[in-house]
């Protein structure tokens, strides 16, 4: 038995009215379920809020933490405003070097997001290309690429990152590493996690490849490259979209972990991870805010992305609502 579906096409006699992109979105299941899911709304609001605030940090932050002249070492380890002894200039207090914690968190969030997005874009470029080729071309290409992915996945991201990071640091020197830390981290995290994309894309390509519209494109005489990118790829976008949210959160966490281990961002240009690390030594001495406040920001950021990802997966997995 089939549940009666409601198609938009009305009878042929009426004049067709083409819905605009906005109207299509408004009538879509995505928008419908977003309207009803308050968690998703809240998470999206937090996420967008954090992104805007982070990337507007040079405008919003009270001080410039990268500018050594604005740092007063005498004002170090000042507590946030709700604790006695706070300085009104520093709402969230200061860190061990006397930098304004609010400013440095804003700048740090920007660095974390930059590395997260950058790494995911790199992963997606590699993973989608390899996944498409493996799935669509099949045979030897498939076997080769997937074995490569298996090998890559058998090393944990952190292990690869630590080894590469350590080698680069040893050969090129710490100064070089600090200077190009953002690019290094994007490369390391991006290269380590492409198999996630490749596998997801390959699986959905295998499903799409057997559909008749792909045969129709072949019968038309289109070349493989065009079929792959023009016909198959757009139809594998939903799983790519879903996995991207999870991967952004993962990349941010990986970066934080690396920074915490001292292989990430340098103290002068800290990310959320290196902030947590730098404050960690003071947690015993009473200055808990230096580590806990950036920690809380990291948790809120990652949690909101993950919850958004969960919601997206539920919406975009047709089995859950079409049954």
């Amino acid at each position: 038995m089939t549940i009666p579906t409601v198609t938009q096409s009305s009878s042929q006699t009426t004049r067709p009215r083409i819905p605009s992109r906005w109207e299509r979105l408004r009538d879509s299941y995505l928008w419908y379920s977003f309207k009803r899911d308050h968690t998703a709304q809240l998470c999206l609001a937090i996420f967008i809020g954090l992104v805007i605030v982070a990337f507007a940090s040079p405008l919003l932050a009270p001080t410039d933490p990268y500018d050594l002249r604005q740092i007063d070492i005498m004002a170090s380890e000042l507590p946030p405003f709700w604790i006695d002894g706070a300085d009104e200039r520093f709402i969230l207090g200061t860190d061990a070097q006397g930098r304004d914690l609010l400013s440095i968190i804003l700048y740090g969030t920007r660095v974390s997001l930059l590395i997260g997005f950058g790494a995911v874009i790199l992963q997606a470029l590699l993973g989608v290309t390899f996944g498409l080729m493996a799935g669509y071309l099949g045979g030897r290409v498939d076997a080769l690429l997937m074995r490569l992915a298996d090998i890559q996945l058998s090393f944990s991201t952190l292990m690869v990152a630590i080894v590469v990071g350590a080698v680069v640091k040893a050969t090129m020197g710490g100064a070089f590493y600090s200077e190009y830390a953002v690019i290094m981290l994007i490369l390391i995290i991006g290269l380590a996690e492409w198999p996630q994309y490749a596998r997801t894309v390959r699986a959905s390509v295998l499903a799409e490849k057997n559909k008749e519209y792909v045969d129709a494109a072949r019968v038309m005489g289109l070349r493989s490259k065009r079929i792959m990118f023009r016909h198959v790829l757009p139809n594998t976008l939903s799983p790519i979209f879903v996995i991207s949210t999870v991967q952004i959160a993962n990349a941010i966490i990986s970066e934080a972990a690396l920074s915490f281990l001292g292989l990430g961002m340098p103290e002068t240009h800290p990310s959320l991870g290196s902030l947590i690390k730098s404050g960690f030594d003071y947690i015993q001495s009473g200055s808990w805010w230096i580590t806990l406040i950036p920690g809380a920001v990291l948790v809120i950021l990652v949690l909101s992305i993950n919850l958004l990802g969960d919601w997206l997966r539920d919406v975009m997995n047709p089995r859950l609502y079409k049954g």
Partner: protein
Amino acid sequence: MALLEVTNLDVRFGLRQGEVRALRDVSFTLERGERLGIVGESGAGKSVAAFSLLNLIGKPGFIAGGSITFDGLELNSMSERALRKVRGNRISMIFQDPMMTLNPVLSIGEQMVECLKAHRRISSKQARAIALDKLQQVQIPSPETRLDQYPHELSGGMRQRIIIAIALLLDPDIIIADEPTTALDVTIQAEIMALLLELCEQHNVGLILITHDLGVVSQVTQRMLVMYAGRVIEQGPTREIINDPQHPYTQGLINALPQMATPGERLNQIRGSMPSLSNLPDGCAFHPRCDFINKANGEPRPACVQKVPEFVDSGNCRVACHMVAEMQEDRRLKLEEIS
């Protein structure tokens, strides 16, 4: 009183776009041992009608009104527990896909024994004997070995025979068969249909056959309903409807069959397609596709656009069309002209 009586059945689906009425005012009866066909295109509501008899429509669908009386029991208001005693036991179902009924991880024998023991207090040995007997009735070669086989080891035709054996297991009063042969090949389809017919006659079991295939209906059933956009539009003895359909839609359906046209000539098609249930035209739902229009200006008749047609008796058949009398008059005039 008939064995099964459905009156003014109304089924709705609560979808996000609003409530969709899948069935409206569906009424029919089934006598003991009678074979009834429900014909219609996809989306006409024939499957919903069958599923709602046993209250098997899942969310977001629900029965919004009407009554279903089976052997004096009111199925519509029955508790789920009481209904389970009727389902499978006194009314059983055959689905289009045999794997909807068969559990792939249990052997055929286990499934049949389980089903028997759920409804009757008998030993496993007795249950197995009954199962074997039913398998013999559906003419499966080497039934003993089949009992220990798993569904995936059998071919499509064989599986559908097993399904029929399971449907007959508890000697039901009615079998509801939803497109039972659509997924099968022509030769196998003919065999399964012949078998079903034979067994129903032999055991005096009533059959409700849901199909889109007019050929199958004409060969198997005694009475038929034609459904369109959630309503029954014509019902009566199968032969009479096939030979002399009254409703323009039924006429269109029969005339559209390739066998009704001269080979190589255009087929007599019906214009357009069935409207979606959420967006039905006013009045008779068929009027935008109906050929019986005002010849003077090519517009549909005002009555067809304004009012939902009531059932009109026409011989042994009942037709929901405003224009039945007029069409008959037209035909009479034509016949007179010829003679």
